[in-house]
Every structure is written in structure tokens, then in C-alpha cells.
């Protein structure tokens, strides 16, 4: 039986298997068709129906279930929904167990939430440091703004204020008002 206690392990392994079987296009297709449109359809339906309130309900529930020791922070502010992930339960599981088959596990989040947000009328500003830390800001597609200054939305809970956010050698992947997992922006100067 395939279990859920080690889900992130065989999920990450699956990305690498799919890439060997059908290239990057099949991995993208998997994130959108299997995760966004099938597995996580409860999230998609909630966010399409309720917008920011739906995001708060979905991530409030799912992050608490996956990370009961609160390795994350959620901020709702006018026109923006923000997540600061200080200790990703999913990437943390992989790091603790020495599992790395796919080139960038963190891409799967944009891989399924990107299309979900696009379909619901939102865009994403996001960075991840490949060390279990990331941040997300969701805004309506027509809204101005993006990549708010550190601390300006989530205060002291902003993950970018951590001393270990960008240590020497860490690579930050960055998205600016984006929903496509392959359209990363150049690193901020």
C-alpha cells in the first residue's frame, strides 16, 4: 500500500519518474491535471468561490494539519493574502530523510497553485530558498503592487527577516506576478 505518512517522499520520487517517462511537459501536466484539478479540487473550488477568504480557509486548515507546530504564518491584509513558511513540513521531510530525486521539489507548489490562482483570477509573488523556507503573496490579477518590502505585510513573521533566509550558497527562486511554474524571474539584485 502507498501510505500518507511518507507522502512527500513518494510524491517527490514521482516527479522524477514522470520526467523520465515523458519529459518536463508530463510533470507540468501532472501538477495541473492530477493535483490542481483532481486531488486539490476542494482548494480550487473554495478559492474560486470565496477568493481571499477561501485561501484563508484552505491554507489555514491544510498547513495546520501538515505543520501542527506552526512552522508557518498566514497574513490577510487588504488586497493581499500572504504565507510565510519558516519550516516547510514537506521539504523538511525530504531533507531529514535525505530524499532528493527531482531537480527542484519546491517547483511543485507553483506547479499546481499557479494554474489554480490563474483560473481564480489571481497572480503570485513568491520566493523559495530550497531550504524549507518561502513566502507567497496572492493578489487579484488587475491589482498593482507585488513583492512587498520585507516586514511590510507580515511584520516580524516575514521569513525574509530570518538570519538564515539567504546564507552563502543559497539560491533564491523568484516569481513576480506569475502563475507559470517555468517563468522564474532573475534573482533580485
Amino acid at each position: 500500500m502507498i501510505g500518507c505518512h511518507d507522502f512527500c517522499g513518494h510524491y517527490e520520487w514521482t516527479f522524477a519518474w514522470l520526467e523520465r517517462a515523458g519529459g518536463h511537459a508530463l510533470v507540468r501536466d501532472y501538477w495541473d491535471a492530477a493535483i490542481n484539478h483532481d486531488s486539490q479540487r476542494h482548494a480550487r473550488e473554495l478559492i474560486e468561490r470565496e477568493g481571499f477568504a477561501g485561501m484563508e480557509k484552505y491554507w489555514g486548515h491544510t498547513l495546520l494539519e501538515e505543520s501542527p507546530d506552526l512552522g508557518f504564518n498566514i497574513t490577510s491584509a487588504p488586497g493581499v493574502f500572504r504565507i510565510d513558511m519558516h519550516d516547510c513540513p514537506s521539504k523538511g521531510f525530504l531533507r531529514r530523510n535525505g530524499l532528493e530525486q527531482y531537480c527542484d521539489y519546491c517547483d511543485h507548489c507553483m506547479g499546481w497553485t499557479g494554474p489554480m490562482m490563474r483560473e481564480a483570477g489571481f497572480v503570485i509573488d513568491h520566493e523559495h530558498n530550497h531550504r524549507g523556507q518561502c513566502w507567497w503573496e496572492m493578489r487579484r490579477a488587475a491589482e498593482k503592487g507585488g513583492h512587498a518590502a520585507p516586514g511590510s505585510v507580515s511584520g516580524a513573521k516575514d521569513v525574509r527577516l530570518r538570519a538564515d533566509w539567504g546564507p552563502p550558497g543559497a539560491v533564491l527562486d523568484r516569481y513576480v506576478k506569475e502563475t507559470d511554474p517555468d517563468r522564474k524571474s532573475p534573482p533580485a539584485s
Partner: protein
Amino acid sequence: MSTSPLPYTDTKPQGSADFYYATNATFRFLLARLGEDGWRRYLRDLGRDYFAPVNRAWRAGGLPAVASYWRAFFAAEPGGEVEVRELPERVEINVRVCPAIRHLRAGNREIVREYCRHCHILGEARAAEAGLQMRLSGGDGACVHTYATPAAALPPQDPAAIREVAS
């Protein structure tokens, strides 16, 4: 160093049951895009590769290692009712309530009808790596998995013994 029979462990005692949605969706995706042969190949590769540490532990530890693995496995899965019995030449895992089928039904998910066959395809691949045999009977929410040494001389798997899932 971990003393758990599970090769990959988490800080939480049990996994999040909503991940069963993703496993069911992964099967649906593979069956749609790659057909049944592709789905079977995925499961066999998963069994040989991702589960290689377990397979090695089973080969080294024999049936007691198989039994302790499955006890730890189902303790980490939420919502199941399972009994693991060590018998001469075999281990029987009596799944009275499958945690995955239970959660998928509770969430009103359309379950792929082939779902229960994954336990046999995956289990058979893992058992072969460990020098064992695996058979499955039942399905659709309750089943019996048998892992046995070659000395048990189990009859071949009867495909009809594995029930399709009725969503």
C-alpha cells in the same frame, strides 16, 4: 539513528489523510496518460526503487521484519483497522478498514476502480526484491495481504480475488 522499521519517518505520529486524494489522483492521471502498462511500470519501479531500503530490511530480517514494518506502517496511517499476524512461513495483514478507501469515500472522491490492485502490483515487486512472495485477496475497503517465503508455496495470484472499487 532511527530505530523505526519505517525507512522514512516524520515528526508527526501519523500522516495527513488528505494525501490519499493525491495518490488516487496520481493513479487516475497515470492510467489516463500512460495506460495500464504505464501505471503498472510506475508501481513496479516505485516498489524496487523508492522502497529499496525496506526491501533490503525484509531480505535481511525475513518475516519478522515484514511484520514489524507493517505494524509501524499502519500505526502511522490515520483511520485504519488492521491486524498483522506472524504465522509459519507467512505474514498476514488483515485490513478490516482500509484507511485510504475510507478517507476517499468520506471525502466523496471518485476512486479509480483499479485502486486496490496497486497493493498487489507494488507489494509483489517489493516482495520479489526481498526473496518473498505476495498475494492479495479482497479489496474495496477490506482485504488480506500475505507475504510468504518460497517454502509456503503459495498458489499464483488469482486476479479475480482482488475486487474493483465501487465508488
